[in-house]
């Protein structure tokens, strides 16, 4: 239970008066002064040191090591083979590999459509929920459910839904369009399989975008709308001139988070299609995993990972700068 400031003050006053001045002088001074020889600054470092060590060990060191490996012929499944420097050869081979460009194209397609759909649907849902209609809290909870599930559960669950003979999805499509349910395969068909993954990702992560957009919409002060109404601005005008510009930084933030996440999407694609049929849905992360842990070309895989890292880092930085500009407006 939180005490009010007045309550706290009265308790302190009471103890001072009971214990006398001498005790009052011993009231906690800064912790550091009690431990001889350790300054506040040293104490601060002591507290953050474990985190920094952990960060260096699990993030920074592997990154530097990967950069080093990317210039070598190292293969993790041949520990006894001599490691030789190969210069930029790994980078050159990665950048000239049509399979890798195909995977990048697949990733870009996937990222573009998932972000577009999730932003449109997420913002629309947030806009509706923000109207505060009757039962909106219940609907908010229901909408959030997919986001709370594990990707492994979602992947397996949708695999069954997409099953051409017993899957509910095909039966619903059949009911609506009249196409026989077993005449099409969402996961096994070249044109449909990318969309099968986009549908699942949109189903799962639209609530996340909705939540961020809802936070944006709720942050707009009511008096702005009241002023607009006084100026007889139409609802449409209010939306374009107030709602959208003021919620835009939040929308952009949601796009950034989803963009980074989907760029490295792995679990859902692996569970749904494993990159197939053929290589139709083989996104960059799956290609990278195959290169690193199935083909064991560690040097080349490291080069690919560094290229991906630089691409995501670069794009994210450009995007954050744009986001800051929008926020300053």
């Amino acid at each position, binding site marked *: 239970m939180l005490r009010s400031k007045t309550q706290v003050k009265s308790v302190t006053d009471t103890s001072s008066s009971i214990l006398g001045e001498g005790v009052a002088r011993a009231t906690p001074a800064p912790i550091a002064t009690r431990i001889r020889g350790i300054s506040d600054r040293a104490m601060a470092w002591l507290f953050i040191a474990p985190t920094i060590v952990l960060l260096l060990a699990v993030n920074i060191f592997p990154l530097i090591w990967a950069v080093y490996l990317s210039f070598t012929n190292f293969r*993790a*499944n*041949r*520990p*006894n083979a001599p490691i030789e420097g190969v210069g930029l050869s790994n980078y050159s081979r990665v950048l000239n590999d049509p*399979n890798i460009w195909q995977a990048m194209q697949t990733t870009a397609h996937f990222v573009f459509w998932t972000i577009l759909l999730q932003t449109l649907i997420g913002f629309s849902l947030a806009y509706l929920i923000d109207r505060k209609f009757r039962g909106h809290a219940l609907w908010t909870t229901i909408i959030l459910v997919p986001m709370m599930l594990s990707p492994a559960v979602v992947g397996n669950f949708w695999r069954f839904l997409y*099953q*051409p*003979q017993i899957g509910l999805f095909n039966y619903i499509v059949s009911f609506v369009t009249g196409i026989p349910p*077993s*005449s099409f*395969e969402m*996961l*096994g068909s*070249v044109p449909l399989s990318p969309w099968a993954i986009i549908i699942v990702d949109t189903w799962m992560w639209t609530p996340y975008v909705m939540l961020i957009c809802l936070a944006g919409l709720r942050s707009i002060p009511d008096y702005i709308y009241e002023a607009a109404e006084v100026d007889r601005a139409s609802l449409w005008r209010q939306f374009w001139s107030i709602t959208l510009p003021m919620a835009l930084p939040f929308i952009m933030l949601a796009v950034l988070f989803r963009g980074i996440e989907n760029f490295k999407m792995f679990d859902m694609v692996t569970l749904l*299609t*494993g*990159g*197939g*049929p*053929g*290589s*139709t849905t083989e996104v960059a992360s799956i290609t990278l995993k*195959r290169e690193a*842990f*199935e*083909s*064991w*070309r560690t040097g080349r895989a490291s080069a690919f990972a560094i290229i991906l890292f630089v691409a995501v880092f670069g794009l994210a930085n450009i995007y954050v700068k744009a986001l800051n500009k929008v926020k300053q407006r």
Partner: protein
Amino acid sequence: MQTIKQALLGATSALVLFTAAPSLAKADELTLCWAAWDPANALVELSKDFTTHSGTAMKFEFVPWPNFADRILNELNSGGKLCDLLIGDSQWLGGSAENGYYVKLNDFFDKEGIKMSDFADAAVNAYATWPKGTPNYWALPAMGDANAWFYRKDWFAKPEIQSEFKQKYARDLAAPATWDELKQVAEFFNGREIDGKKVYGAAIFTERASEGITMGATGALYPYGFKYENTPGKYDMEGAVNSPDAVAGLEAYKALYKCCTPPGYTDAYMGESLDAFKSGQVAMAMNWFAFFPGLYKDEKVGGDKIGFFVNPKEKVAASTLGGQGISVVANTDNMQGALAYIKWFAQPDVQKKWWSLGGYAVHKAVLTDPTFTESQPFAADFLVAMNQVQDFWQEPSYAILLQAMQKRLHDYVVADKGTAKEALDGLVKDWTEVFKDDGKL
């Protein structure tokens, strides 16, 4: 402060004991790693005799097939100590021998009087030797296996189906002997209604991630005349891998996939094939011999309802090799125990019991026993198959070679990209790059 010191001391001791405990237990304990499938259960049963005989407790680490290679190769590459004994795929031999993951067993075999001539030649060649075919032994043949077929004997025997088939194809409906016949029979059954249910022609392997489509498609490629090299050991693949015969074989596999597999059969391997057959969806299915004892015992589709046949031939008779040898992991802390297991396992009596429990022994004492071919309805086919097996590359770079083939085949067969010739030409290109990287070309 004293309490804190005591607590720290206690925690440290517990930690030391906890970490030391596995190594202490190792002295009279062995861990055997293998894939999680029917024969593994038989091996657990068999190994109880070893424990009785030696006093060594057996632990087992069985990994599901789709993750088997990833999990175990990671273990070997990282110098892990999980496995003392490993029943690993034949393709791993080259890498494991050259990287020092397996113990070379020649001296041990000589010392203990274990003769490789006591085992089937094809099995020794495939499961034990590296370089392939040389007398350098890295494993003891443990589990013979090949890709073969099973069918609904009860459906084939229905008089109305028999007569309709004869009318259509002017021959009796029987287990197919060639790939042409296989396609005919599959087409005949595909879409037919049997016992009030729509059925399909055949369940074949189309899995993309691990090795499925390669193991399935080579079942067509080998009989049509596919070869890895023009001259063995020369890596001259142009004209062998992409020969007109190989192209015809790949086209035949795709034709079978397109005409006669159940809907949604785009990423199917062992489990899916068994499911399709057991659920009465397909007339025929391909799978490894290892599953046949279980299928024969199945209450719904086993017994009189099931028949077996060896992989159909076309230009030549050939089957895709499965199966594994048992190796001693060089990193083991219990070398003597592991070698003792190998010695025990190599005994003819143990091999006979192994076969009786459902394991595919390849010891000649088992295979040449006069009662062998009658011992199981698929035993005769197993003997035929083991005499015509062909295996994938066993090179240290086998994983890269396999991934390339998986991609090329799946792109062509399932995703309809390009032609069979283009797929195999692409494969030659991929494999050439790998062998150039390895300094073999």
